């Protein structure tokens, strides 16, 4: 039996449905907490705004792609996500070990921690594929995107003005390049296979 979602799952639904009024409520309730976390730890209000926005996007993606069902208060999940992401950002900026000064409002909420872990790992994987895909030449990207979007290779070849055989050969080379980069990436080795 599916677990019953937390009543605050409505915030997740609001993100999926781009429901302005409820999204405003999310900001109303939780923005100050995240702003405080960031500003007390070497960040600016602009950093806090970007972090908050990225965390909400991440939650929306988890809901859209992984069918996220909220099993803890939304605020706890959002805060733990923001905290982890900010810690990563500080590490990236300082290139050394960092700690965060905070009141730890949701310490020990294991559901929130587990959801945040899953979301961040999924996001890292998404970024890995996106990053190396974007590194490909524009023509490779167009070719792969068209052919993976469900249209036949014959149509892809026609759209791009290639012969069918050339389009297949070219796609194969583009995918070879993509997978070679991904396999060589240190992040790929760290991420668990799905």
């Amino acid at each position, binding site marked *: 039996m599916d677990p019953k979602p937390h009543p605050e799952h409505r915030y997740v639904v609001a993100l999926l449905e781009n429901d302005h009024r409820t999204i405003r409520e999310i900001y109303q309730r939780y923005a100050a907490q995240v702003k405080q976390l960031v500003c007390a730890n070497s960040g600016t*209000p602009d950093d806090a705004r970007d972090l908050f926005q990225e965390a909400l996007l991440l939650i929306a993606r988890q809901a859209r792609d992984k069918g996220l069902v909220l099993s803890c208060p939304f605020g706890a999940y959002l805060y733990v996500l923001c905290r982890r992401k900010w810690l990563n950002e500080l590490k990236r900026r300082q290139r050394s070990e960092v700690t965060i000064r905070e009141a730890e409002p949701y310490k020990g909420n294991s559901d929130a921690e587990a959801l945040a872990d899953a979301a961040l790992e999924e996001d890292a994987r998404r970024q890995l*594929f996106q990053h190396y895909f974007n590194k490909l030449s*524009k023509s490779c990207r167009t070719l792969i*995107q068209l052919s993976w979007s469900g249209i036949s290779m014959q149509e892809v070849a026609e759209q791009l003005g290639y012969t069918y055989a050339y389009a297949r050969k070219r796609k194969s*080379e583009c995918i070879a390049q*993509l*997978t070679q980069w991904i396999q060589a990436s240190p992040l790929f080795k760290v991420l668990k296979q799905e």
Partner: protein
Amino acid sequence: MFIHIEDYLDDALPPAERAAFEEELRRDPELAQMVALVRQARKHLVRQWAGEPTEAALVDTLRHIGKDYFQGAAAVPAAKVRAVFFQRLALAAAAVLALLVAAWLFFLRPPQHERLYARYKALPEASFAVRSAEGAGLSDEAAQAFNRRRYKEALAALEEHLRRDPEDAEARYFAGLCLLELRRFSEARAAFEQIARVPAWTDEARWYTALSYLREGNFSECRRLLEQLPPESVRYGQARQLLEALKP
């Protein structure tokens, strides 16, 4: 190998070949790993592309609402400057700074159309590596020159290539971007017009044509073109934002 993997994942192999391929997968863990990787890449990227339009709309909402909740820096308490001398020095410095800012605003600050152009142009990174390896003739030097913002040099290489291969839409796209950066607006638009007929390039061509009018200061033409971008265009979200910024 990848042609086979793709056919397998597309379920396009005839039954006998499919069975043989699956047998090979059982025997060869490296091949199995590669199939798993391509399958993962497809899944993640396809999901990402499918979600882009709704995500762009959500980003718009979040940006819009976020402005109201993260305004202004928390006041940083200024250090108390005790000595009057330092207070005066600070005042004098502030006055000089204010004058400099005023001078910048009146004389040096780029005009609105240049600022908006700079904010929205987000030029792509050129990479022709796969193509030059295939012997398509477009050297990676053109890409490097473009990425280092040496647009004249990049344009010369691209034009030379286009003389040999006038149908190369990607080369023409980057040539258009070089022309746009060099402020040769009508030539840039002519390049974009040529590639707009190729479906894969229509969006980009329209978007940068609109930006060429923006950079020229022709806001009404820029607005007209942005308004014509259909909602399924990958540039739709940016177009709406720019239209908002262009409101009088």
